[in-house]
């Protein structure tokens, strides 16, 4: 069940989520997951692959209603960055963004395209872009809708490390300048330790919340040593190891 709440708070409470396998048997994949996101908070959802992170994100986004529990959203304006860019191949980069965000002004779009280094690619079709640029276009689309909640599903996966770092920095710059409540799904613990203010760890079958760690140190002041110590703490909470 989805409700619209007040004060910009996101509340997620899922008692159970089952899926039917191809063989026809029902299997629980999520159980007893409950957390709230404060306005402007940047949270990572961490867990091994196949632990239901993407499913959880879809439930929060209202794309999957077949679950037992409740989700309360601040309002219905959502920015979603999918694992694949999911751009419309028959529309240019700029058209892709404008179709999703018809209310965005030219100045807003200019600013977003500038930060993401897309200024020269506005007229290109997605098929002409590299994966890194296509991901940027997907991020631009999600920000252009002025989201109340930004959901990111492994947006840096299969990019080389320099490129991933660069996109992470651009993304964080956008999130900070706009104060958007964000939920980032990742299986990369170091990435989580560097970027977010809070880490929720999912593990087990069905997946449950095994940890909820705040990281209070401001992002800019985190040293590589601090990041790896946080990563160690996250790793220690897991039932299974990668």
């Amino acid at each position, binding site marked *: 069940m989805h409700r619209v709440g007040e004060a910009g708070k996101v509340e997620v409470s899922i008692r159970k989520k089952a899926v039917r396998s191809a063989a026809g048997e029902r299997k629980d994949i999520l159980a007893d997951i409950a957390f709230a996101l404060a306005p402007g908070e940047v949270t990572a959802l961490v867990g091994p692959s196949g632990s239901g992170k993407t499913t959880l994100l879809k439930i929060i986004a209202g794309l999957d209603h077949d679950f037992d529990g409740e989700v309360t959203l601040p309002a219905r304006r959502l920015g979603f960055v999918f694992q694949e860019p*999911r751009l419309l*191949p028959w*529309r240019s980069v700029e058209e892709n963004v404008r*179709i999703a965000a018809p209310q965005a002004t030219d100045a807003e779009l200019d600013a977003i395209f500038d930060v993401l280094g897309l200024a020269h690619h506005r007229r290109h*079709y997605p098929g*002409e872009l590299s994966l890194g640029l296509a991901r940027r276009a997907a991020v631009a*689309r999600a920000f252009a809708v002025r989201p109340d909640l930004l959901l990111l599903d492994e947006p840096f996966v299969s990019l080389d490390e320099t490129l991933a770092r660069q996109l992470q920095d651009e993304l964080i710059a956008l999130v900070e300048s706009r104060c958007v409540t964000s939920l980032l799904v990742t299986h990369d613990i170091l990435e989580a330790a560097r970027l977010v203010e809070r880490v929720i760890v999912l593990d087990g079958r069905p997946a449950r919340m095994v940890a909820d760690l705040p990281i209070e140190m401001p992002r800019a002041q985190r040293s590589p040593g601090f990041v790896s110590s946080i990563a160690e703490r996250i790793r220690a909470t897991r039932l299974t190891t990668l």
Partner: protein
Amino acid sequence: MIWRIASLAGFLLAWQLSSALAGGTLLPSPEAVFMALVEEARSGALALNLLATLARVTAAFTVALLAGAAIGYAMGRSSTFDRVADPWLILLLNLPALVIILLAYVWFGLTEAAAVGAVAINKLPNTIATLREGTRALDPTLDEMGQAFTFDPWTRARHIVVPQLAPYLAAAARTGLSLVWKIVLVVELIGRPNGVGFAIGTAFQLFDVARILAYGLCFVAVMLAIETCLVQPLERHASRWRSRKG
């Protein structure tokens, strides 16, 4: 290009030779056919008949494409509707064109609506089947994207669904055009007082082979013009995002 011209010249030469062998009554020479064409054009009958046929082709084609696309889309989206409508579709696919035409004339009289309707129904099942396949091939991840960004139904249709169905619509239109105009001629032959089919029928009764060929070739020329001036540019426009790749 040079091969095309050579091929065309070869065709005219073979025609001329066969005509000389078979005799001018059975197979008139290219020149005799051209003279018959000029005569028809001068009397105004050619323009009248061509326009009447083109109007019927346009009407039947539009009806069949719109209705077929809507039904095919619905069948592709809903498996229940697909199961209910599929036997009807198979029936319609295998019903001979002639039966549909004669029944339409018997039930609704020798009217324009019966003629156009009969042609449209002949084309309909093929459009439905093509668009159903297209709808089944729609990318669910893009649907999900549209849902996440709360696209309204019009935006979804225009930017997500129609571009994906465009190649299927083009295929249905391509096969549709050639099918529709052939059936329109039969409908005109049986029950209309004008049109290319009617003119060919009259020429047949008078054993005027030159006039039959004149109308036949003229209609091929018109359809070729529609294909190159309308269908191909439209297709190029719809697939421009593909051609720029790489």
